[in-house]
């Protein structure tokens, strides 16, 4: 049984990528983060972050250390999961151009490197739908790095952020949230706050 904590422990997948930036963000919000490299690291976490990184490398490490099914059961138990960039690719039910899906927790189809190579990485502002109970839509600053795009949002999920040109860059399905950009490197705290409040709620 999960112990009652005043604040939940949030796991951050630490097999590869910018997990330190996410841990730093959690720390700045006064929440304990934990690096997750093996299934045992997931015991007692109330929420999980899948960071930015190279999704092909992360996919291999997830399979190699049998992390897929424990993460799926964590989601099944109602724990919130946030995936940024590569993390969103890991969450998707479909990956364009042939790659098999990894966690299949978010009903979207994504395309990797949808904007092109590094020279097409960019910064922009966009409107993101409010996530929490008190949330209203607001403009946020976002950095996209060799970013994926959400091509299609299935019936179980919905788009929560789009670019000016209409391309979808964030989608949510209950407590699962996948976004194509990196709030952890711009200091945009809203998404992490949402994850923490959902994790607190899930703890009961």
């Amino acid at each position, binding site marked *: 049984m999960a112990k009652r904590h005043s604040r939940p422990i949030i796991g951050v997948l630490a097999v*590869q990528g910018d997990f330190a930036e996410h841990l730093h963000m959690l720390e700045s919000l006064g929440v304990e983060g934990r690096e997750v490299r093996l299934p045992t690291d997931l015991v007692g976490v109330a929420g999980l972050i899948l960071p930015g990184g*190279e999704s092909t490398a992360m996919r291999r490490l997830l399979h190699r250390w049998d992390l897929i099914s424990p993460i799926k059961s964590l989601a099944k138990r109602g724990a919130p999961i946030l995936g940024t960039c590569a993390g969103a690719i890991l969450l998707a039910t479909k990956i364009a151009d042939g790659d098999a899906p990894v966690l299949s927790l978010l009903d979207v189809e994504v395309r990797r490197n949808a904007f092109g190579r590094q020279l097409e990485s960019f910064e922009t502002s966009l409107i993101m739908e409010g996530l929490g109970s008190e949330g209203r839509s607001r403009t946020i600053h976002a950095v996209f*790095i060799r970013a994926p795009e959400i091509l299609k949002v299935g019936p179980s999920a919905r788009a929560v952020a789009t670019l000016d040109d209409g391309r979808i860059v964030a989608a949510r399905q209950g407590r699962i949230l996948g976004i194509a950009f990196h709030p952890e490197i711009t200091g945009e705290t809203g998404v992490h706050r949402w994850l923490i409040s959902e994790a607190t709620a899930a703890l009961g």
Partner: protein
Amino acid sequence: MPAPKRAKTSTWATKKGLAQMLKGGVIMDVVNPAEAKIAEEAGAVAVMALERVPSDIRRDGGVARMSDPDMIKGIQAAVSIPVMAKARIGHESEARILEALDVDYIDESEVLTPADDRFHINKHDFKVPFVCGCKDLGEALRRINEGAAMMRTKGEAGTGNIVEAVRHIRTVAEEIAALKGQGEKRLRAAAKEMRVPYELVKVTVKAGRLPVVNFVAGGIATPADAALSMWLGADGVFVGSGIFKAKNPAKTAAAIVQATTHWKNAKVLAEVSAGLGEAMKGIEMRTIPEGERLSKRGW
């Protein structure tokens, strides 16, 4: 489809940001699309496309230059992970060619024969981000001041001997630690000595680390070498000759990837280090004359 029209591309955040996404990973030297595939399969976060791995450059001698654009294009077509390529120190035109090829990062590298004995490339002038080598804090900050968005400690490439890599990452860390808690006067003096702006020294000392992602390079040949690099504070590792000069490249590559993730976990390291076959044959440093050390190139 490219970035949206009103978005800003090639900003400091995007340049530095790609390196942040590579952290905790392994960047592997490859000389053809087949090797690039093996690297990607093994879990590399990026590949460095070059004509000859450092140990062959060391053996063959002669002038080592930027790779043939066709070879770089072939590698870009073969893999979906980032592709980096090397330009000679100070060779602005090689760098422009690599930028036109849409590589993801340029390595202004001492492994190639330097083209300019006075100036490194002015990297602020480029849209594509750069990674550069360093042996100590001053060299790192000079490169960052010129616009490098990622660093790697040099080590001694092509040797399969990690001793220089260890020396360089330790030196950077010790020099930052020595400035910690020092007043403005002392930091200004250090900045002057290192020939970099005071502000850059200040942010580095405050953070207790280099202000950009820093990988270890030069001499990594085994999973344990990768783990040692991470233990010494590296953000990730470059492996050059260590993979494709090993008896079993695919297995060695995968094991080095696992070790870079699980560097703290000795049980995992023992498991992934087993049964790899012979590692690349290494070179004892004493047998390399000072003048032949690649790490001495650049300043």
